[in-house]
């Protein structure tokens, strides 16, 4: 009887002690419980250093994962154009039943089925950089590509003011990807359709872009400027213009910040480039995933922003890290 008495009182005491200590602790600092499960991240391209953009995205992903204690796995096709391969990867990832999927969709329409299948299985999806034509994703973390396109278009228009030939052509990367669609729309909005000769697609291949541009430079004598809608397209254009000896004669507005592009920018082949913030994109997508898994609210659209870089501001302190990311030394 007394043993019962002691035991009960002791247990009550221990409980009270524990609770009070817990409360006491909570008052000094909040405990962060890491979200459960693995976040599967499917990127558009997995080639590595050659595509600076994605390696910087991965850096942002790594830093955010460390900060928010997120387990993640990254996969993706080798090249952006391998849409079927990305669909296959997406389907096999869904089979693994991850807690969340972050997807950079290689195709605006063809990934919809996979995304909806994930949703049906209760796996939330966050799209990164390029979205899909669906309401399913809980958040879309990307550059506002329409705005980026407008920026590029307006810069081109500004440069055109003192230029005799006003015709512009657009070198796009992949026909059906959301980034290309929005950027093209933005460029067209800023310049007006009447000034645009047309849009060509290079399948995100620098050499194709080079060949098409070389060809077009001869075919269109009234051509005054070219807008390249991504790194590969822009590099092909810049190389073609430079090799044709038409530096300064053909105005080039590019996208992205590959080292070669920046050399061309210094040299004056490329006049301006619209740079996204891939690091922030990777970081914010993982942060959104962590927030969502912890039950927080996530904004349906997160614009990571874009910056117009010219020769004049490229070495400004705030853009240096953006343009010249230090990769490969992160843990």
């Amino acid at each position: 009887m007394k043993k019962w008495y002691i035991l009960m009182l002791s247990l009550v005491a221990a409980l009270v002690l524990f609770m009070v200590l817990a409360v006491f602790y909570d008052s000094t600092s909040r405990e962060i419980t890491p979200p459960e499960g693995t976040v599967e991240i499917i990127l558009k391209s997995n080639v590595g250093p050659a595509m600076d953009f994605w390696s910087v995205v991965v850096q942002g992903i790594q830093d955010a994962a460390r900060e928010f204690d997120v387990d993640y796995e990254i996969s993706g096709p080798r090249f952006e154009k391998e849409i079927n391969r990305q669909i296959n990867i997406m389907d096999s990832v869904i089979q693994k039943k991850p807690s969340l999927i972050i997807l950079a969709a290689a195709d605006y329409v063809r990934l919809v089925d996979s995304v909806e299948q994930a949703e049906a299985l209760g796996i939330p999806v966050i799209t990164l950089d390029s979205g899909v034509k669906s309401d399913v994703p809980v958040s879309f973390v990307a550059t506002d590509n329409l705005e980026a396109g407008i920026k590029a278009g307006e810069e081109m228009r500004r440069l055109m003011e003192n230029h005799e030939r006003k015709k512009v052509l657009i070198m796009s990367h992949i026909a059906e990807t959301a980034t290309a669609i929005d950027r093209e729309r933005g460029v067209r909005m800023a310049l007006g359709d009447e000034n645009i000769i047309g849009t060509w697609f290079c399948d995100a291949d620098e050499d194709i872009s080079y060949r098409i541009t070389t060809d077009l430079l001869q075919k269109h004598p009234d051509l005054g400027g070219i807008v390249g809608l991504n790194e590969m397209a822009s590099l092909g254009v810049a190389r073609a213009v430079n090799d044709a000896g038409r530096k300064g004669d053909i105005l080039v507005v590019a996208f992205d910040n590959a080292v070669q592009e920046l050399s061309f920018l210094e040299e004056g082949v490329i006049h301006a480039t619209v740079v996204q913030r891939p690091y922030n994109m990777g970081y914010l997508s993982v942060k959104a995933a962590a927030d969502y898994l912890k039950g927080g609210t996530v904004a349906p659209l997160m614009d990571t922003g874009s910056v117009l870089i010219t020769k004049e501001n490229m070495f400004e302190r705030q853009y240096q890290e953006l343009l010249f990311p230090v990769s490969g030394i992160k843990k």
Partner: protein
Amino acid sequence: MKRSLTFGTLESRIYTIFTVMIFSAIFVMQLVAFRYTVDTVRTTTIDNNRVVLQQLVKQIDSYITGMEQISDAVSVDPEIQKFLGSDSPFEDEGLSPGIQRTINNYIQAREDISDILIMRMDRSTLTSHTDDRINPWTAIQDKDWFYRAVEEAGQTIVSSSYVQNIIWGRYSWVVSLSRGIKSLEDGALKGVLLVDLKFNRIRELCESLVIGQKGYNFILDDRGNYVFHPTQQLVYSDIRVEPLGPITELFQEGGTWYQEEDRYYMVESSDITDWHVVSVVYESDIITEWKSLQLIYTLIGLILFLIVGMATNKVSSGITKPVRRLQDIMQSVETGEFRLVGEIKATDEIRALAREYDIMVTRIRELMEANVREQEQKRKSDLKALQAQINPHFLYNTLDSIIWMGEMKQSEKVVQMTSALSKLFRISISKGRELIPIHQELEHVKSYLTIQEMRYQDKFLYDIHMDPDLLDLTILKITLQPLVENAIYHGIKEADHQGMITITGTLEENVVTLEVRDNGVGMDSGQLANLIAGLQSSPEERSRMNRQGLGVRNVHERIRLYFGGEYGLVCRSAPGEGTSITVRFPACSGEVLQ
């Protein structure tokens, strides 16, 4: 069981009060200790972190110092002096490659140097590699490192981190050391030396010496600009905001650390570079073992509480156990059993209480015994009174007989009967003594038998056989007469034949056995059972029984009262065969038992 669960008992009250008090004490103590431990851990961690931070700054400093030494050596190199002094240095075939070899030696010795360049005032530049081309699109004179070196001729200028683009096609993150080189001859400024350090080394240092899982370091220059931040892009796009104001205050006015939300900021400044290295530690990393700490404290509290609880229990039961034993013994009074406590293990007060109680109980026992004795005395005297009563029937019957005999002029018989009556009364009084010699008792019964014989006119005969040794032994007076009376009234009187009463006496092993036997009608089993039951009944029950056998019962009871329960009467009887009543009592002479 129930007793200790209610708050009313001494034990539970002691226990509960003790428990509550001790629990509060342990609780407060634990809380204070916990708080103290948390603070200590935090302070220790921050102190340790400061040591790590100082280590970091020292490493950065020694790194920069090493570079300065190189720049010192290079600036006084005679070949370089010659190169700078010459009007057309590039035409001197041996000069440039010689200097490039020297510079390359330095670069190879220190793998953290990215480049060493020597620039003449006419902008012509000597690179460390022959293949390197100066970026034609950049304006060297606008570069920080160049114009500050020219302005502060002779001083070493340490730049912030930046992307060096002076070599065409190569963009590398560096920290630059630059200084103007003066001619050793006339002291005039001849050129600028640029030593580029790979910024990765500083980056790696900053990223390797971090505290905990989430901690990080960053570097600010004297104007509050970032030299390095691990997530510089987040900082520049305002996704992460560092509290630069308080941090600046910290290194300008001194101070140990600054806390914002769950982050702790510490600053250590480097004099050589004018950089301020900021270390950030997260609270969750400081007290990583919080959960187990909490568990340990709770466990200690629980164990302490159990031990103290057990001890309290021991103490309280040590006090209450003797009290409860006392209580149990005292309760025995209720049942009429007066138990003594005796020697018990308890405190002095309880022992004194027990002693007093024992004395009291002993006194009560004595009083009760005295009371019982008095009661017995009273009963004895009642019996005396009873036996003193002469059956009035017998008396007036006898007197009637005397009268009748007088009328019949049988004077001899009158005398005989009257003298027998007189003897009967004298012996029955016998000066108030209880015990009389057996021969007197025999006289008494003979007188009685004489009277009855005369009254019933040869209805019966009697015979007495007595061991002569018995005659002087004592007997309780009026023992035989009621038995003879019983034999006459219930045996012989009813019988048709002449009766015979035999009285015998024997002595065996100090026990006197007297037997009164008749040959009358006897008793059937029912009557005998009645009589035996009457003998065994208590005095209280006896009063409710009929007068039959009253005399016999009285004899039985008086003998038992005087001599003890093992003595008394034994009856034997059968219908038509008469009755025998045996009296047993211890042999004794004189009035020792009185």
